[in-house]
């Protein structure tokens, strides 16, 4: 897995490329968590993610907790339909803010 990082008006955009599974989850965690101390909002863009396992989901849950505790909003974008389905079926979808595209996810974060 590769992780690309971008910045847009103080919002951190994290783009995991490939798979988040038990082997790569720690890497994803290390990339996402510090953003809550640096940015006014965090967007995880799933556009280039091909697979996410429960280990990945665990990291996202942890990120959502951190977001709540720190008051730094977290939003997701560009989930492929099968990935979105996993989120919906498991009931996790309602725990997260999920947007169709990156622009919508960034726009959901209130200006500083």
């Amino acid at each position, binding site marked *: 897995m590769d992780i690309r990082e971008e910045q847009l008006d103080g919002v951190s955009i994290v783009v995991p490329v490939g798979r988040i599974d038990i082997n790569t*989850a720690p890497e994803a965690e290390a990339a996402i968590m510090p953003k809550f101390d640096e940015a006014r909002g965090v967007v995880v863009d799933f556009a280039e993610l091909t*697979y996410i396992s*429960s*280990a990945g*989901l*665990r990291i996202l849950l942890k990120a959502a907790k951190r977001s709540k505790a720190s008051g730094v909003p977290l939003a997701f974008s560009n989930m492929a339909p099968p990935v979105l389905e996993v989120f919906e*079926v*498991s009931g996790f979808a309602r725990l997260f803010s999920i947007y169709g595209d990156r622009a919508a996810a960034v726009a959901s974060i209130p200006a500083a």
Partner: protein
Amino acid sequence: MSGSASIVLCAGQRIDHGNTAGYFPAALEPALRVAVRDRITELGAMIGYSSAAAGGDIVFGEELLALGGELNVVLPCERGDFVSQYLSPAGEDWVARFDRLCTAAASVTVSCEERLLGDETLVRFNNQMLQGAARLRGEALGIAPHLLLLWSPAAPFEPGSPADFMDQWSEVSQLSIIDLDELRAAAGIPDVVSEDPDFDDMFDLEFGVSPRAIRAILFADIATFTQFDDREIPLLFDFLAEVQQQVEARAKPPVLINTWGDAVHAAAETAHDLADYAAALTESASTIDPASFGLRHRPRFRVALHAGPVFVGLHPLTGRSMIFGHHVNRAARIEPLAIPGGICTSRPFVALLKAEMAERADEAAQTGRSYSPRYEVTYLGKKVLPKQFGTEDVYFLEDRDAAVWVERPEELVSAIQDPPPSHMRLEVPCDTAEIARVAARIESFGALHDIGDKVVHSVNLALDELLANIISYGADGETLPEIEVTVGLADEILTVEISDTGRPFDPTEMPEPDLDADLDDRPIGGLGIHFVRKMMDSVSYRHKDGRNVVTLSKRVGSAEVAPK
């Protein structure tokens, strides 16, 4: 509304103890208990699998038992060692609760009869064995198992922790979480987690570099070896050279392989790697023509596959890599049970294989590919192993891709395995709100046994009347009655017993209400027992050992008795 029945694998946060940071303070236990109780009811959990560390595991086990479920405890290491590592640090009270839980559980198994030695490998192996046990039971009963986490997502990752379970569980749609952080916030218990907890101080176990690793282990020999005379042995090795050529083309080489005469011992990192190797080995040996090598008989491999935590090292005499420990010896004891030309496996191997299959299926679903497992297993039963190695659940492994099918040994297939529990005992708190929970549990029991909705509905109506009566009028002064409901199914007859310690009262003595009387003349009450008589095939009462005991029975299935 018809109920559902589920198999639940539970992983609970350990309770805070000593100098651990506060993820599960003792003050949170009552709130967790209520949440667990509700979730068990909601999920229709009738069968549970869990370890039994002080904390969430034990709360789950106690509540499942109180709600009439069947509990199966699986421990990572020898029991005394488990108690000193996972119970004693939290206090003697937890040790006593652990002992009571083990006594009441349907089964207590140990996945590795060795000491823990501060080793995360055994804990992780236990996690896999728990998953495997739940999956196999689910397959036997046609129910997909569910993972329930009693978890503080903020807690640090530890082998065997709920987070570890979540990572290893691929079916996200079969995952349910009770979030301890949220419960704590709702209960107004202050957050005592320090900003930067010192993880190293939090656990008594030192997890570190381990000489152990989980390996799939193969033992094989040529079952027909004695048929070959000395003159044929070189020809046999020529035959095996051809086998090896084909195996190399078809399967990944094992991480370790050793031979002694006709015996082969190999190990791999995944169950699939080793199954692929074993399948290639048996298939090549059964398709290459022995006559073209000058052999009069076909050499047939007898293959056994096992899995477990083993010590990994180099052999001091040969310098070659080796694995050793209890599970290596165990694998060797399983091998004589295999059928010539066939592959048999132990339960731990199947557990690993099934977990890998679930992961492959999940990945295929997400990436839009289709997946059908290459291997299929059939339970052959609990077999006695030679040389005092106890018993092992043995399975027959079939390769769907095989060109040559090995006949499944039908005569060895066990007819019955893991039947669903035919008995349920519920402790019912004296509160009318609990009647709905009892009804939900009866529905789940009905779903587990394919009992028709009509029968379930009748039983619940009868229970509603009788329980409401006990809860409303059973108190003796200040003392609330203890109430218990037991349900049993035998020979198509459902028997329900309601027993309570309240004031003696025989509902069967209540006069039949005059159903034809005018509204004004109708007494209030008395109708309840009338319903019960109508709904059930038989109703009887006795007063025994200070308890009222009402016994109801109802025939289930096709031969239902017509209403009276």
